[in-house]
C-alpha cells in the first residue's frame, strides 16, 4: 500500500439500471442477497412495523429501478456498531436493510420502531430511520430521514427543526389504518419534493 495521503475521495457514480442481480437479486437472479428488506431478527425486541411507499421522479412517474437502504437504532436507541460506545445492543438486530423498488416503484421494509438516539448536543432525537436513495440518473445518492407521525418527540427534534415547517411533512411517515404499517413516499423532485440532507 502506498503511504501517500490520497488527494481526495473517490467520486460517486450512479448505480445505473442494472444493479439488481448484484445488489438486490431477491431470488430473481442466481446470486444470494447480502441484505434484504426484512431487518427483523428472532431475538429483537420492540414494536414491529412496516415502512412502505413509492419513489417518484420530477414528472410524478414511479421509479422502478431505485434502491433504498435504511440504517437505524434498535428499540432502545442503540446502534449495532462498536462506534456507538454507549452500550452494546443485546440482540442480533443489525439495523441495516436494502430494498429495490418493484415495477410500480414500491418498496417496503419490515423492522422495529427505533428508540431515541441523542443529537449532536446530546439531546434526545425523535425516533427516526436514516434512508439513502440510489437510482439510475442519480450520480450521488441522497440522504433523508423517516420520522413517524405518532411520535410526540417530533416537536422537539433538532433535525426536524432545521426544516422549513411547510416541508417537514415530507419526512414523516404516516400510520396507515390500524395496522403496524407506515407510509413514506419519496419524491426526488417536484412540488412534494422530499427534504434531503447535506450530510
Amino acid at each position, binding site marked *: *500500500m*502506498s*503511504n*501517500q*495521503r*490520497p*488527494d*481526495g*475521495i*473517490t*467520486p*460517486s*457514480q*450512479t448505480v445505473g*439500471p*442494472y*444493479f439488481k*442481480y*448484484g*445488489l438486490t437479486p431477491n431470488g430473481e*437472479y442466481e*446470486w*444470494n442477497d*447480502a441484505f434484504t428488506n426484512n431487518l427483523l431478527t428472532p431475538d429483537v425486541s420492540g414494536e414491529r412495523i412496516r415502512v412502505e411507499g413509492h419513489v417518484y*421522479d*420530477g414528472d410524478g412517474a414511479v421509479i422502478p*429501478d431505485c434502491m433504498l437502504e435504511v*440504517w*437505524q*437504532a434498535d428499540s432502545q436507541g442503540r*446502534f*449495532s*456498531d462498536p*462506534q*456507538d460506545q454507549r452500550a452494546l445492543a443485546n440482540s442480533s438486530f*443489525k*439495523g*441495516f436493510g436494502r430494498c429495490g423498488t418493484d415495477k410500480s416503484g414500491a418498496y417496503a421494509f419490515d423492522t422495529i420502531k427505533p428508540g431515541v*438516539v441523542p*443529537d*449532536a448536543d446530546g439531546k434526545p432525537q425523535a425516533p427516526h430511520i436514516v434512508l*439513502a436513495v440510489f437510482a*439510475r*440518473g*442519480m*450520480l*450521488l*445518492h*441522497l*440522504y433523508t430521514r423517516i420520522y413517524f407521525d405518532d411520535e410526540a418527540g417530533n416537536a422537539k427534534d433538532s*433535525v426536524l427543526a*432545521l426544516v422549513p415547517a411547510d416541508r417537514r411533512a415530507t419526512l414523516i411517515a404516516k400510520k396507515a389504518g390500524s395496522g403496524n404499517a407506515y407510509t413514506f413516499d419519496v419524491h*426526488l*423532485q417536484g412540488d412534494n419534493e*422530499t*427534504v*434531503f*440532507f*447535506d*450530510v
Partner: protein
Amino acid sequence: MTLLYPLQSLAAHPARLSPDYRSTVKRSPQKPLIPMRHTLSELTGPVYGHETVRAHDNDLTIQAKGEPLGERIIVHGHVLDEDGRGVPNTLVELWQANACGRYIHVVDQHPAPLDPNFTGAGRTQSDADGYYKFITIKPGAYPWGNHHNAWRPAHIHFSVFGHSFVSRLVTQMYFPGDPLFPFDPIFNSVTDAKARARMISSFDLDNTKPEWALCYRFDIVLRGRNATPMETK
C-alpha cells in the same frame, strides 16, 4: 477510532443535476439540501462479518460450471480513508457486464451474447489492512440511449460501506486509456480531472500473473479523517 466527515470532501462528487446525463434531469432535487450536524445516526454504520461473504464470492470466474469467455483479470487494491489508512473488514460489492458488454439484467437488451458461465456479481470483505481482491473478466463497452451513438466506457460498478453511513460510496471503476472517456457524460459528470483520475484503475504489471491474468489496481478512498481537535484554550 472516531472519524470526522468534513463536507468539503464531497466536492469531488458529480453535481446531482448533470444535464448531459439526461436521466439526472428528473431525478435530482431542485430544492436546496438541508445542512445538519452529524449525529450517531450518521456517524455509525452497518458492521458485517464474514457471514455475509462466502468463500470464492470474490472470484467471478468460478461461479458457473464452465469458465466465462473473455479476458481474465485481477482487480485489487485498498479501501482507504482520506488520511490514507486502510479501512478494515468492510464489505466491497461489485457488478459488471460480461466481456461482450452485456448484463444479465432482464432490462438489458443490447444485442450481444449472454455468457451462461458469467453472472457478473461478486463481493468480498477488505482485510485488516483494507486490502481487497477480485478475479473477474474484463467487461466490454456497451451502447446506451442517452444520445446518438452513446457508448459507456468499460467499467465495473463498486459498492463500499466504510466506517459510517455517510462514508457509503457507490462508484464505477474504469480502465486506463479508454478512448470513450471524452464522450461519456457519466464519467465526465466529475468535473475535476484529478478526481476523475481516481476512478481509473492502473495497470499493475508487478501483480500480473504470468501465463494467467493481467492485473489492475483500484484504490477506493472513502470519506473520513481523524483530524486532530483544535486546542481552544
